[in-house]
């Protein structure tokens, strides 16, 4: 289990990604950048990537993060590892992934705010290209939830 046709973000998606444009134009946010982490094969490497992401965000003095993956099933181990590493460093975060009816196979206490990218009736990987990819609506939800979490933690934005 991993990336499937309905969740996979194409090269064209990355080029016109709604989330990036939304955050980049937001006057309430100082947008530091986009961290790209791979979803490697071995579990030890998945933990390694997640931990490095946490360390980077702390080093950047990041106040909040939106963490997404265009994948599902076993790849949730990578998402959980990254969100645990970020959460342990006390950085507010929102996760975004296909949840649907299949759920998230690896979870932890730091994954308390998740946005679902499912658009299918079945709530699963449908093998239909881009059906369960993030849209502007989900991007907006992520930004709103992150702002809420940050304002609760810091008292203001």
């Amino acid at each position, binding site marked *: 289990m991993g990336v499937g046709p309905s969740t996979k973000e194409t090269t064209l998606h990355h080029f016109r*990604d709604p989330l990036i444009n939304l955050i*980049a134009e937001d006057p309430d*946010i*100082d947008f530091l950048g986009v961290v790209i982490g791979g979803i490697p094969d071995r579990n030890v490497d998945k933990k390694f990537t997640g931990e490095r992401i946490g360390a980077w965000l702390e080093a950047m003095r990041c106040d909040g993060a939106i963490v*997404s993956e265009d994948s599902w099933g076993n790849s949730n181990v990578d998402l959980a590892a990254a969100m645990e590493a970020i959460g342990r460093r006390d950085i507010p975060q929102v996760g975004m992934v296909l949840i649907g009816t299949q759920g998230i196979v690896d979870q932890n206490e730091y994954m308390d705010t998740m946005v679902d990218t499912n658009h299918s009736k079945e709530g699963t990987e449908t093998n239909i290209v*881009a059906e369960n990819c993030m849209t502007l609506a989900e991007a907006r939800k992520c930004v709103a939830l992150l702002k809420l979490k940050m304002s609760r933690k810091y008292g203001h934005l």
Partner: protein
Amino acid sequence: MNEEIVKRQLTIRSFHCHEVVFGAATSFVKDGDYYKMTIKKDIAEDLKKSSDLFEDLTVKILKPGEHHVKINSVMDVFPISVKALGNLGEGITHTITGAYVMLTGVDTNGRQICAFGNSDGWMDEKVTFNQPGTPSDEDYIILVDVLIKEGYATKRIGPDACHAACEIMCEPLRANLKKFREGSENEKHVYRDLIHPGKKKVCVVKLVSGQGAMYDTHYFAKDPSGFTDSRSIIDSVGSPIILSPNEYRDGALRCLYG
């Protein structure tokens, strides 16, 4: 009052393609208010010759809305862009709108070039159009379909060769696209990498495919959304890299599998 510090600026000029045809040579030229793309009629032969792993390769031009066609599993959909000035993430990028490349493939044993789940079948049933990552109903699709030798659907060199072949088709288009003067574009978008001092610092973290074989994501090719000279995230065992918002928006990533 919102203070902002501009670190760099990226201008993306788009050139809208209103017709794609086969012809004597590959070109992208002005045609009235818009642009016309011509693909060399025997381009498939040239692309096929680019790798010993290919048993066959076809290139089709699908008109807007012509979606009821049989396809193999979709590896990727990508725009054709070129850096006209500066490095990725700054300067000027020229991109074609109205026509996008869709890459599909299968091996001679019937194994689709895909990971978990494949999207082969009728395109109108297997693709959600009008999404950020897919063509709209008004767009042309240049469909490149590869029949690869048995066993190479799941080896890195298989999908790599398919993406590399597409570059042979895109290069002459990029050469034309690069030369258009300021003001000849149909749309212009200016993106700025900004610092908002005193505001909350936010990162976007994206986890992308990198398990091995056809699960792969490349970054920082020679041209935006390109493949040539790109690096694989498999080779760095998934280690995180950081992109400025403009580098990301300038097509820093190329997805190998769909």
